[in-house]
């Protein structure tokens, strides 16, 4: 594609729109510089809604394959709901609910993200160069989320697939109610790891403050080694450290309604 010059809408005074909920009648700003399949725009004076509209316009309507967003300024809800294969580079930190529900994009964030990044992600890759807040990769179904710093609490809560890789420490209740998928945690982990998990694997290289209910140490197999080496190779993370594997103890699969005294009678 050749360089496209389009008329842009004047930005005017930025409207307060922290959550992207106002400005229902906003129009696409059309301010990106487009060079072939790559586009770039400065989000400094744009509202959340306009940034997301600009992204969608570039990716869906113009068919641009790679977009670089400058100065995202830790705004919330950026890049949510992008459903196409593409590359997005955020040159700075993002706020809450970044990249929720995405299906396909390969995203690099040169900064940190707030709470609930990549929530409900279906597929794709998100690499966060710095730290992430709590609830990172909540309920993801597929794709890889790589956090090069530390994460907050409840990482991968209700995870249903995909892989979460954290190079730093992780907070409490990591992998809470996890149902499928993998977590590769290279640092130390807080209390309640894998609490009430149904399935999936959690690999931890550092110390675990305490295990959650029904989370037990698992048996290491050759497939585990292969997975970790492959993921480290793909993301250029060097040689992997020694990991411990944790899985579901499956004690909670069946509800045991008996009191201890009743159990004695039955047995």
């Amino acid at each position, binding site marked *: 594609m050749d360089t496209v010059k389009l008329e842009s809408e004047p930005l005017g005074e930025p409207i307060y729109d*922290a959550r992207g909920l106002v400005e229902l009648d906003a129009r696409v700003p059309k301010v990106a510089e487009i060079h072939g399949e790559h586009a770039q725009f400065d989000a400094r004076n744009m509202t959340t809604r306009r940034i997301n509209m600009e992204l969608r316009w570039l990716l869906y309507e113009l068919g641009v394959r790679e977009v670089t967003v400058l100065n995202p300024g830790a705004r919330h809800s950026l890049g949510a709901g992008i459903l196409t294969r593409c590359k997005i580079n955020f040159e*700075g*930190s993002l706020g809450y609910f970044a990249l929720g529900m995405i299906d396909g994009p390969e995203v690099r964030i040169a900064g940190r993200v*707030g709470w609930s990044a990549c929530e409900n992600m279906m597929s794709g890759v998100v690499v966060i160069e710095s*730290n992430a807040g709590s609830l990172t990769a909540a309920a993801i179904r597929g794709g890889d989320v790589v956090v090069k710093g530390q994460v907050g609490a*409840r990482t991968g809560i209700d995870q249903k697939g995909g892989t979460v890789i954290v190079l730093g420490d992780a907070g409490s209740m990591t992998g809470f109610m996890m149902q499928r998928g993998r977590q590769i945690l290279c640092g130390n982990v807080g209390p309640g790891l894998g609490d009430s998990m149904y399935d999936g694997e959690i690999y931890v290289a550092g110390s675990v403050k305490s295990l959650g209910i029904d989370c037990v140490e698992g048996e290491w197999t050759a497939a585990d080694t292969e997975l970790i080496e492959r993921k480290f190779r793909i993301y250029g993370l060097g040689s992997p450290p020694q990991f411990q594997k944790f899985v579901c103890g499956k004690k909670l699969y069946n509800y045991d309604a008996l009191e201890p005294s009743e159990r004695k009678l039955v047995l």
Partner: protein
Amino acid sequence: MCGIAGVIYRNQNGGQRIGRDMTSMLQSMRHRGPDSTGFALYRAPTEDLIVRIKLADSTAPRDIEFEHDVRRRRRDAESRLRAAGAKILSTESVNEYTFTATLEYDGDIKRLADYVESVPHTEVLSLGHSLEIVKDLGDARSVSSAYGLDDYFGSHGIGHVRMATESDVDIANAHPYWAYPFSDVAVVHNGQLTNYHQWRRRLEANGHRFASMCDSEIIAVYLANRMENGDSLEDAMHHSLEDLDGVFTYMCVSEDALGVAKDDLAAKPLVLYEGDDMVALASEEIAIRAIIDREIETYDPYESTVMVWTL
């Protein structure tokens, strides 16, 4: 939901535009709480004692009696200050229902506050050598301009935007809370406390007074009670993690320190930036970026954390 923010400038002699900074931080989080906004700001301590007194609520009806009542309460409050042994050096009206008095006083702080609050509908908002609490209904920008906070220079401060869940929308229930009867200690809180009534009964039995029905006030009074019994601010905050039940992230400030505590579920957010000369923390990074316009390294402190920074 509520949003909290704090900033402390270290090793800089207290000449920072703390009022403007806090306004920018709180304004960027107004989606977290549109009901009321409050500030606790600190400047270099003076010899004199500054007391900020509220004579009526901003929601009080402006009927024919209002002006008369406020004037009478102010006269009574000033005479109680004198009766408690304070010498009033100057007074200044902040708005139609709030005024500050600069005092020469070296007696018991609790006695002074109790004397003033014995005037009906009167509340001591803040009392100290460097603390001033400003709180009112509306967003940060409107409260800040009504109270002229843009020109407030100081060393550190905390603030709060409130989305009321448990109690009324009025000034009495707005944060920050002054840790009565400790001069220069204030608290803001994001969360809910579930053993509020238990602690309120316990603390009231110890002679503490409550100015509102808001669960967050318990933190200020709890810390005051601990400090009264010899704890340092940091020790009191550590004990609070054991004693307070519920979900919370709260910030506490004193004359020369700013502290933050998170519950053991890490259920309420906090983003922290620690620079060489300043520390800024808030419920959302967007608030910190409102005063630092560049990419910065921030992180979320973990569960059961207590952190304190001094000037």
